[in-house]
């Protein structure tokens, strides 16, 4: 008995020592239809690694019928019902069928935003696009994108961060792009075929269900093995980079089969159609959600500013995660390999990437097994909720940043003894990308006077925890402090007053002097006193120097007169304090009260703040030409940019 049991044990040892599938150096199975290769069916288990069982070290998830999120993964039908519920029950959600799969299933895109296409100030809104479920076996991704959907809708009236996003950005989501493949993978939650080192079909299906012989779908039965290796890799089918750099295959059985021609697959066309909901011209962000690896894999077109913005954005988003993601850009100018991220990076000039969510290594990151590297596609049920929240945090921060940089748009100073308004000014929209400053009141502030300063911005600048305290957004530095606020008197030496230390962000409505303007924490207030000892004998100009960063570490638009927008892969009209256009911004010095020895004095001529008045350092000499006629065009661009600050700066104000 013991010998027989031993024999059975030997025969049932984990995996055949000599596997029937032949895998080449590129990872391709070269004999997919051979007996003992394609017709082998594996079963994922918690603990049993015998025979054709593959142990994970945790229970393999089975899809759950639930519309609301669970500690696990919802079946496609429930996800779809949830999406349709959010669409039907909320005015802020629109949706449409953007395509049909080969099996005739609808592919839906949803857009979350208010009814108009303008920001709360009236400027054109930007848009963001996120794709999920493009690879069938990556179950994390429909859940993560659905979490974004659910959270935006749930917070739409929060008077703060979420309401701001809904009212000032259009968010387009495709929660499940490869509907056919995803349904197939869910139909076989514990089974895969072929080889432990490269499992295919069932739970491990990656591609869509395109049958290359009939141009219809393959069947849904994984025991009919002749079609188990077929399908098109939807992340190799876009035209940008199609067939290039050995990044895809022309073999129909390959994991990275690119299809017969670019954009041949309905799912890829559906995603491109979804982009039109932005609308396309307003897109500023694209992310294709995948698993696994914890990477931001970004194409890099030949656009320096775009690439720098993409990197900075990714790094802020990575910081918002509780896990160690990395930024992995392509070499600059390489054309891509036909991914959807290539399509949007090159075609739309917007920050774009393949976002590989967790885990980093595989199931062993959660106390499970490596399972030949593939356990990373099978996230344990117990990790699903945390994963959703972690990816959500990253996406929301990215949306917030790409909605546009902050601008200081209103200021008020009141005498705290008399409650009289001494200074009141606000920037209001005056054109499609312009604001005009209206100064409603400008009375003299006198030494010895006590005042309350109130400043408002065009977006919520902070968030709060459940206890109501201002906290940093995960991984970002701006906390409760309001940052640099300086009452400058440029014509006086050594008498500027730092005000930021006592400032507080405002989370009650009502506007100046104690409430926010439109959204919680879009304004702060600080009480201050002008020292008796300020040496003024006549009306003297002052400037409010504002050096805030928003919660995603973006600096202020230094010139609110021109509203920031996006174009050609970079920010437009995002100036620093000197009025120079760029992608970093700076400080704001647009609010200019004055002080005088006596109340009732007339305002003097305005003065620039110190930072705007200081000449920039001399530009470095241009690099030498590389020889030959014409030299390097990039040198000329650098030279032009170097001269721009001098040409455009007079009295700290940007030239019209």
């Amino acid at each position: 008995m013991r010998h027989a049991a031993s024999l059975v044990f030997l025969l049932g040892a984990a995996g055949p020592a000599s596997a029937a599938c032949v895998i080449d150096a590129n990872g391709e199975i070269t004999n997919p239809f051979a007996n003992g290769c394609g017709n082998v069916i594996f079963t994922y288990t918690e603990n049993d690694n015998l025979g054709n069982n593959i142990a994970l070290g945790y229970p393999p998830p089975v899809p759950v019928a639930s519309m609301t999120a669970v500690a696990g993964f919802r079946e496609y039908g429930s996800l779809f019902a949830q999406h349709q519920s959010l669409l039907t029950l909320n005015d802020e959600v629109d949706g449409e069928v953007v395509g049909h799969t080969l099996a005739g299933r609808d592919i839906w895109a949803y857009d979350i935003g208010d009814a108009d296409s303008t920001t709360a100030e009236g400027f054109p809104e930007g848009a963001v696009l996120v794709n999920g479920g493009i690879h069938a076996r990556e179950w994390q991704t429909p859940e993560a994108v659905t979490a974004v959907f659910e959270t935006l809708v749930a917070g739409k009236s929060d008077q703060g961060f979420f309401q701001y996003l809904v009212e000032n950005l259009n968010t387009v989501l495709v929660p499940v792009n490869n509907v056919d493949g995803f349904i197939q993978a869910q139909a076989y939650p514990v089974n895969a075929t072929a080889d432990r080192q490269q499992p295919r079909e069932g739970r491990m299906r990656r591609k869509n269900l395109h049958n290359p012989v009939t141009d219809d779908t393959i069947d849904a039965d994984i025991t009919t093995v002749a079609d188990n290796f077929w399908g098109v890799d939807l992340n190799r089918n876009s035209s940008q980079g199609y067939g290039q750099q050995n990044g895809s295959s022309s073999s129909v059985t390959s994991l990275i089969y690119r299809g017969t021609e670019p954009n041949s697959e309905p799912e890829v066309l559906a995603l491109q159609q979804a982009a039109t909901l932005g609308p396309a011209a307003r897109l500023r962000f694209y992310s294709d959600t995948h698993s696994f690896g914890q990477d931001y894999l970004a194409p890099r077109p030949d656009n320096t500013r775009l690439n720098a913005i993409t990197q900075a954005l990714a790094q802020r988003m990575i910081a918002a995660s509780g896990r160690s993601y990395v930024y992995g850009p392509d070499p600059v100018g390489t054309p891509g390999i036909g991914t959807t991220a290539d399509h949007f990076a090159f075609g739309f000039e917007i920050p774009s990437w393949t976002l590989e969510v967790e885990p980093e290594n595989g199931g062993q990151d959660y106390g499970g097994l490596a399972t030949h590297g593939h356990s990373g596609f099978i996230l344990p049920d117990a990790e699903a909720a945390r994963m959703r929240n972690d990816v959500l945090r990253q996406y929301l921060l990215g949306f917030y940043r790409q909605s546009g940089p902050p601008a200081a748009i209103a200021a008020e100073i009141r005498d705290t003894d008399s409650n009289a308004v001494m200074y009141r000014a606000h920037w209001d929209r005056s054109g499609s990308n312009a604001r005009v400053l209206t100064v409603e009141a400008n009375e003299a502030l006198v030494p010895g006077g006590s005042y309350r300063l109130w400043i408002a911005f065009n977006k919520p600048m902070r968030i709060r925890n459940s206890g109501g305290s201002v906290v940093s957004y995960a991984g970002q530095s701006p906390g409760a402090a309001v940052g640099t606020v300086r009452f400058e008197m440029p014509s006086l030496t050594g008498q500027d007053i730092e005000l930021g230390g006592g400032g507080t962000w405002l989370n009650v409505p009502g506007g100046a002097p104690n409430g926010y303007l439109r959204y919680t924490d879009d304004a702060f207030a600080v009480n201050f006193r002008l020292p008796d000892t300020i040496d003024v004998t006549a009306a003297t100009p002052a400037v409010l120097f504002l050096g805030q960063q928003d919660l995603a570490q973006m600096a202020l638009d230094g010139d609110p007169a021109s509203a920031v927008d996006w174009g050609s892969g970079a920010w437009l009209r995002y100036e620093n304090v000197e009025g120079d256009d760029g992608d970093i911004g700076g400080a704001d010095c647009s609010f200019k009260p004055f002080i005088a020895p006596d109340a009732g004095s007339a305002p003097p001529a305005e003065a620039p703040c110190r930072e705007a008045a200081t000449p920039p350092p001399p530009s470095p000499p241009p690099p030498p030409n590389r020889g030959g006629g014409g030299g390097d065009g990039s040198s000329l661009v650098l030279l032009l940019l170097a001269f721009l600050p001098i040409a455009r700066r007079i009295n700290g104000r940007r030239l019209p």
Partner: protein
Amino acid sequence: MTGGIARYFALACTLGLASVPAHATHVVDPATARQTIENPIAAARDAELSALAAGGRATELAARLELIAHDATLTDVAQEWLLDRGLHSLARIAPTREARAIVARLASRVPVVYTRVDPDHGDRATPLYDAGATARFVLRSWERNDARGTAQAELAAGLTQAVDRYAQHAVEDDRDPVLDGIAEAFRNAPMRELAAQRPAVSSALAQGQRVDALALILAERFADPALFGLIFDNAGQPTALAAIPVATRALDASSALAALTRASRRPDAGSAAMLEIGRVAQSDPAARQFLFDALAEPRIAASAAAALGRISDSAVSADVGQRLSQAHSEDERRLLVLALRLDANPGARDELERFAASGAGSPKLRKDVRQWLAQ
């Protein structure tokens, strides 16, 4: 311990901690990895390990693995592959003290062989094998097996200590392998042994102790409505979710509906319960009525609508359509429209067309309906 075993074990011990791999990490292509493990040397070593495992010789097997972990004559791929396979074999045989010690040392081993698993991972490689993770799996497997054996004996003796022990371990760590072992013992136990555990499990669950999995096993085996009720009132989300389809299978229709009604009150499982009630409602009028009534409860209304839609029955579609025509509020209209939208029955489409023609509803709702009908 025989002389041979002692010799191997002594040699393994003198090598000290087994955690440091002999090779630096490197990324290997799949073909190379496959060739390495198929070569005769690796195959021969694998056969030796299998033979030791077949004989239940845990100490020798573990000692052999520790030697492999330091064998510089092996390629890294062969080394890691053999460790992984040998450790999996160890998980299936009874451990010895020496084997536990060796596996504990192997548990801190870091991966050295990486591969590119997914073509979209760029330059990011993932471990092809992770012997340290497998060693930790082995330790958990042994702990689970030990717990199962102890619990089996207690169950056979009519003792309830396993219930107390389960509750205690669940508080400390809900992924503790002891919990799995005790649950396995319950799963495999005959009914008469489980009957003696029912009072203890019910009492513990009612007091808020985390004996969820044990309760579900008993609830299913005894088709116990009271125990299902306790589960839905007290258990954690994973067990509550797992219990939903089990309740439908195990209980009669009336009892199942009562149990699922309790589950529907949970914020974390209410939607799942409503969808399951929808399955029951295929044949149970009381379940259908429950769903219609639930449309008035904001927390579960959307799930109730979806559940009604999933019944896909012309009589239900007509009933929903009738209510839609008489709806007084936009919220009510939207829920009923959602139910029809998710209803694959042709009658549902007819009802939506009737609604569209009525001109009722907000502009947004009318737009959505027109869009659906146009597909």
